[in-house]
């Protein structure tokens, strides 16, 4: 057990303790006695391996890990596991990687097929490497590949509805922002994402607009305000020091405002393929501009993109985001995707009080009752639920747009994406939405399934 660089033999690799080093059979207890060199070397190797797999284990948490080793029995797998887990894992998404790496560590296998020379002591081990960020973790042992979908299928195979090729004829003539941006190259193709200079300029303009329009909500915090109605005792007392304790000059506060969360949930399935490229770029603009914006995309499953998009460099962020989504242009399951959102993020309060924008053509292969129920649930959590549809004229004619028709009664605002005036009003809508609650069409007690049952045949929705 030396300090060799590659393939450092971790402790406890064999069932019985290593005979050559009896003194480290049990780590010394007590905070002031450092653990032995061999343990340190193995611990360094473990932390380095975790960093190599994209975990955020920093050098200072590594130091805490060393201290923790002195407190537990390093021959006991459970204790060692939890000591490392408590000090090196920072969020539940990292547990999959951690478990896999720890398993190799404990079994004494080589830890890292070293991808790049990670130097011990660097402050941010993730800088410079390509990240497959967001909530999608790199699959252990499969570098460069985003997490496989839960259902085990890889995007294109699951495509089950007609895509851009099939419906280009009818919608080529569309005018409007989303339509104007549509382009033949799509995200699912392998080539590098190409954006023209004027497109990038337009994106920066969009970001500016969103920044200006960013909605606000009242905070519980209060700020000094002459016109406020809440007496500020602290400042009043300060003022009265000058007047021998007579409170002549009263100070007031009023509630401050905070940015309201804006949540984008965008459809990138096959039928939306032509819009995906520009959607992604718009999301990047929005996430960069608004302080509390969150971006999700879905085809067959939901992917959170906020972290992938949160970089400085526009094009690099877009590339990262593309890599993070495993199912570009897959089939659409809006209902189950929204259910997924409601159960994971919604339950944790992501949509509560937020402005939620769903961008989708509403083509859905799932059960419209499920979709209606989930849209309803989302609406009840959100401050305002806005649905942007780039192909609104098909809602009444296209049988597959049944999902859209099922969702319509439960959304607060429907924006036809092909109409430039409507899209231009979107920013104003977002900013104004904070001031008043929407007037909801249906009371909270109405059953979504019953509404779907009463839905008329094609062409009857207004």
């Amino acid at each position: 057990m030396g300090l060799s660089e590659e393939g450092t033999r971790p402790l406890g690799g064999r069932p019985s303790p290593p005979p050559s080093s009896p003194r480290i059979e049990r780590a010394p207890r007590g905070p002031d006695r450092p653990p032995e060199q061999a343990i340190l070397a193995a611990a360094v190797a473990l932390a380095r391996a975790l960093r190599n797999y994209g975990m955020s284990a920093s050098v200072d948490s590594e130091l805490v890990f060393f201290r923790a080793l002195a407190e537990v029995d390093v021959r006991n797998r459970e204790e060692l596991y939890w000591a490392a887990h408590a000090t090196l894992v920072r969020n539940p998404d990292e547990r999959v990687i951690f478990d896999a790496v720890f398993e190799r560590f404990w079994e004494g296998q080589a830890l890292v097929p070293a991808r790049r020379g990670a130097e011990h002591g660097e402050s941010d081990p993730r800088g410079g490497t390509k990240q497959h960020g967001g909530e999608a973790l790199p699959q252990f042992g499969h570098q460069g590949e985003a997490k496989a979908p839960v259902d085990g299928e890889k995007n294109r195979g699951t495509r089950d509805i007609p895509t851009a090729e099939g419906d280009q004829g009818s919608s080529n003539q569309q005018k409007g922002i989303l339509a104007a941006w549509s382009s033949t190259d799509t995200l699912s193709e392998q080539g590098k994402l190409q954006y023209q200079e004027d497109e990038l300029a337009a994106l920066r303009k969009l970001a500016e607009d969103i920044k200006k329009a960013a909605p606000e909500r009242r905070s519980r915090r209060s700020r000094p305000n002459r016109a406020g109605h809440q007496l500020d005792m602290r400042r009043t007392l300060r003022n009265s020091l000058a007047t021998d304790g007579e409170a002549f000059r009263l100070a007031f506060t009023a509630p401050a405002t905070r940015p309201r969360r804006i949540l984008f949930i965008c459809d990138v399935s096959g039928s939306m393929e032509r819009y995906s490229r520009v959607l992604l770029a718009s999301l990047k603009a929005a996430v960069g501009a608004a302080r509390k914006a969150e971006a999700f995309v879905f085809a067959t499953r939901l992917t959170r993109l906020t972290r992938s998009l949160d970089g400085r460099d526009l094009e690099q962020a877009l590339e990262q985001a593309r890599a993070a989504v495993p199912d570009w242009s897959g089939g659409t399951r809006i209902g189950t995707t929204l259910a997924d959102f409601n159960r994971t993020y919604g339950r944790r309060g992501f949509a509560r009080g937020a402005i939620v924008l769903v961008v989708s053509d509403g083509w859905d292969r799932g059960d419209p009752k499920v979709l209606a129920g989930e849209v309803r649930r989302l609406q009840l959590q959100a401050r305002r639920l806005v649905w942007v549809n780039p192909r609104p004229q098909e809602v009444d004619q296209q049988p597959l747009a049944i999902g859209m028709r099922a969702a319509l009664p439960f959304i607060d605002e429907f924006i036809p994406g092909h109409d430039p005036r409507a899209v231009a009003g979107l920013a104003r809508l977002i900013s104004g939405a904070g001031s008043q609650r929407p007037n909801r069409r249906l009371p909270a007690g109405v059953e979504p399934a019953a509404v779907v049952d009463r839905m008329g045949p094609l062409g009857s929705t207004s």
Partner: protein
Amino acid sequence: MRGFSSIEELCRALTEQRYLVDEGLGTVVFLALRLRKPLLVEGEPGVGKTELAKALAAAAGAPLIRLQCYEGIDVHHALYDWDYPRQLLQLRAGGSSPLYSEEFLVRRPLLESLAQPGSVLLIDELDRADDEFEAFLLEFLSDFQVTIPEIGVMRAEHPPTVIITSNRTRDLHEALKRRCLYHWIDHPDLLREVAIARARLPEVGRRLADQVCAFVQDLRWLDLYRSPGVGETLDWAEAFHTLGRDQIDPATADRTLGVLLKERDDLERIRGKGLEGLVDRAAQRASELREDGASGDGLV
């Protein structure tokens, strides 16, 4: 505050408080105590995050000080404030003691935890507070000291044991996480939940406790909007007990289902699945438990 010399001793002391921990949580809490590091606990609602701090305080014989976070919480709610009415009176009365002294200081939870030696400080649902508040906590959590401009730096002689809970409505800041140990609490498995129910509700019969736990374990696999937590399991067992039942039956289960499930969609879904089948299955699994000879005492 009582110290613990080993993980086993700590687990035993927590068990005496009727809080059962598995080896993972036991190790992490032990490390938090020994390394004097704050412990950040995350997990689904209802897995006993807050309860952990209460049990730890009771086990260590230490005072528990709780800071419930909410949006807009600031220094005056978390750290200290001044007793303005008394200050004004003092000013009017022409008293001699300085206005900004400890005499007029109102201690809020964080300051209180520094003043009380060896206390357990629970910072509950930190994700509800603004991110600025997290930045404010950094000084406190790394040095266990606070700066009050009018008085100076106040430091703890015996730093408190800090437990922070979060429901992950947002990611906490890296800088804060770096200062903490981390643990994610899962829902307990059947054996552990049975042990918890038996420990927490000694008055409830074993058969009933086992059946209720088996029933809830099944529900957690059903992908509900809001899976019942341990607290709800205990409430439900108590509900049956209060109604004079010593085992679960479909009719009573139907009437009391609102104790367990609090979403209309979930209720309808479970009723639609047929309570008879679920109740039968739970009874079956509970009887298997007893036949295996698994007893609550051996599980801890």
